[in-house]
């Protein structure tokens, strides 16, 4: 009999997911501008793979297909994975990564709401471990490439792996700034000298820093819309900046400044779109701060000392494991209970 409350006022899961997709659009636009239209192909590929595999798995698991396909969560996973991959990743890489994310990391754990790990990061990590060579080879931004590829060339490259006659792979790819910095530091060069290379922009990587800035914009929109809470991005960025700041102050010759870390690699995508995945993250305010700060610190350490140029995926997955523990120990004080 007692079914109250009779009224609700909440955005649907679909609305939330659509707003996340919307917030990614500025970043995608900047991406297309800097790296060319190939990313649109990657996004489409990932989206189709995600929706198709989700539908098949739902059917197989005997769950209603329509509401779960319509919730938009598969698309969010697909887009985040696509944006984390190198821009001209071959088609099969995109498909394999998406399948891992949706089938293994999401549906086999029970579908929406039940995945303990961030599906996009599982997909990414699996690819990074299995195909490190492809995963770390990024095409140079168009304005740096010796022979910039047109859209049809990019399309051809994604599906056939072939370049226009006379163009070598090296001519279109370059190390990412994070990667380059790491290798050069290994060769005992100094940060100031290294960052004179053309791939470095004003603060981050040339071109890439615009994409990063656009993600920031989308992220602020999500905070304003109350889709994500400020705790996660703030703590993550603050921790990363603090780590970078301390190391930089101690030894500016061998450590890049905080601004570079904030605007390079997947920093902003991570801050506003990846660690903010509610399902695999903590729920308490303090827990969110700890979780995000932890990922920030670990990301920095992996960037500087680890075997991979960017440490976001592994940091996120590692802290996903700790979520139940973090939640359990950060329960807020309940009304009428002593501290």
């Amino acid at each position: 009999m007692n079914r109250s409350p009779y009224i609700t006022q909440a955005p649907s899961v679909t609305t939330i997911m659509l707003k996340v997709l919307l917030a990614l659009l500025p970043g995608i636009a900047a991406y297309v501008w800097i790296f060319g239209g190939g990313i649109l192909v990657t996004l489409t590929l990932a989206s189709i793979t995600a929706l198709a595999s989700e539908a098949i798995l739902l059917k197989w698991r005997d769950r209603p297909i329509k509401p779960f396909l319509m919730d938009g969560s598969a698309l969010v996973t697909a887009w985040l994975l696509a944006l984390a991959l190198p821009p001209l990743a071959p088609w099969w890489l995109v498909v394999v990564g998406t399948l891992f994310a949706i089938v293994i990391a999401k549906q086999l754990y029970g579908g929406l709401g039940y995945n303990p790990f961030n599906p996009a990061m599982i997909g990414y990590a699996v690819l990074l471990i299995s195909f490190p060579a492809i995963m770390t080879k990024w095409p140079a931004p168009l304005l740096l490439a010796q022979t910039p590829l047109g859209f049809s060339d990019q399309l051809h490259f994604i599906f056939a792996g072939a370049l226009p006659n006379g163009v070598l792979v090296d001519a279109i790819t370059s190390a990412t700034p994070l990667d380059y910095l790491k290798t050069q530091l290994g060769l005992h060069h100094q940060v100031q000298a290294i960052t004179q290379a053309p791939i470095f922009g004003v603060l981050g990587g040339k071109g890439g820093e615009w994409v990063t800035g656009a993600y920031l914009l989308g992220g602020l929109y999500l905070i304003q819309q109350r889709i994500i809470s400020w705790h996660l991005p703030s703590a993550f960025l603050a921790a990363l900046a603090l780590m970078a700041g301390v190391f930089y102050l101690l030894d500016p010759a061998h450590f890049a400044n905080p601004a570079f870390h904030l605007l390079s690699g997947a920093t902003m995508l991570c801050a506003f779109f990846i660690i903010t995945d509610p399902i695999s993250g903590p729920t308490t305010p303090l827990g969110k701060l700890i979780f995000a700060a932890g990922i920030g610190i670990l990301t920095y350490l992996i960037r500087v000392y680890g075997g991979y140029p960017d440490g976001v995926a592994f940091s996120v997955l590692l802290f996903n494991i700790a979520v139940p523990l973090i939640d359990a120990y950060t329960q807020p004080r309940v009304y009428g209970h002593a501290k």
Partner: protein
Amino acid sequence: MLANLFKSSKLSSFNGGVHPPQHKLESTRAPISVLTIKNAQQVFVLPLRQHVGKVSKLLVNVGDHVLKGQLLANADGQMSAAVHAPTSGTIVSVQDQLIPHPSGLPDIAITLQADGEDRWVEHHAMDYRSVSKREVLERLREGGVVGLGGATFPSHVKLREEAKHPVDTLILNGAECEPFITCDDLLMRERAEEIVRGIEIMQYLLNTKECIIGIEDNKPEAAQAMRDAASKSQILIAVVVVPTVYPSGGARQLIKILTGKEAPSGKRSTDIGIQCFNVATAYTVHRLVNHGEPVISRIVTVTGKVARPGNYDVPLGLAVGELVALAGGAVENTEYIMGGPMMGFTLPSNHVPVVKAMNCIIVGKPEIFPEPPPAMPCIRCARCADACPVSLQPQELYWFAKSDNFEKARDYKLFDCIECGCCTYVCPSNIPLVQYYRYAKSEIIALDKAKQAADIARERNEFRLHRIEREKQERAQKHAQKAAGAKTESAKLEAAPADAATKAEEAKKAALAAAIERAKVQKAEIAPKNTEEVSPQIQADIAAIEARRAEAGLAEVAPQDENN
């Protein structure tokens, strides 16, 4: 005025809360309309349980003619309240009837048929300062005064001065935070002086140092009326306007807002020197003490799909359907909600009577509040936690309740949940969270009861096992003695010390058994108290569990018996 400004500047707040659409304007346009009883055929149904505590003791018989305000059933002990005749007439039945309760179960009620004269019983005012406080409290107990905010806790219990917990602050709750409900708003607008007279009595009884009336800022007229009335009082009463946020009208939430203090979990607010009453309760205290009129009517907001939404001063016992018809609403083919949309419930029938707890009737539930879309899985977005006024983690509680992990639910403070509905209100996945909590709470209570009963049963069984063991030993001993008797003299001599040892052992065991027996008797004495007030269903469950326990015990012992 200055005092008020000062007060509002240091208002505190509670975590979360929500801002549902108000829907209060509809029912505040017209003044309170007082329903009078002229119809000689009018029937009133008066449940004997309109309050928290023991069911009232019936004082009348079928066929008796009674006068308006006459005591029909008296409070049974302290935790109980009285029931009076809302008009003069004849008692036509005393039987189980459908009452406005979420359980939808019938309960014992008196039916009174009006004689159309509406003639009062002899009643008189009381000069409360010239008699003992005990006499005033006794009058409140006999006058049927209970909390009218919905909790219906007997007021005389809360107005008793307690040396252990002196009350410094008297809080009057005029927040009325639930959407649609405006009965307190109108009462404060129109009968502010009478409310203040009631507050003066409460202040006198509790001997409090300060008095605060908390009113949400969406009721400026009511706040102004209360301020005017308070300024004319001999005692200092502060009217504090609080921000409109649901559930600021929850007693504990209002206490936090007004004083910054929190009533300790599981304890009463008097532990921190605060007592809280609804403004409508103060009004009834005044009517009873200063006019001798018991609680036989209340103001009910009738709103929703009705032609004349508004507030009605209704005699208790009137059928809700008749009230709604008066307001120009449908009686058949629709559903009514009693209370507000956040915490109210659907009435089991549109013909149940108006009772003391009924502050609002929303007509046309299916039309105004369509069913929510099907629930999706929890996405752990923590909106519910952000909205919870008690700072619980509703998403965790949901998980525990769903998986019947009741111990965990208790650990995560399920019993601090006030069932305000804020969590469900903000959940993107449309999960009926509060229903899960209601379910889990009732399950836990039932399990606790069952466990108590099982403990008793186990003890009985242990005693029984012990007795069987003793008998076994005795038999064994007899066998041994027989066997020994067939043996030689020397063997007999040897057996003697062994015999003594067994006897000592036996004495010890007997003492232990006696102790268990004593404990059992003690438990048994307590036991009826534990199960006395539980529903027949739970009693049956307990009996079933006891039976199962006993059977299990028997099965374990039987084979050993046979081996002997």
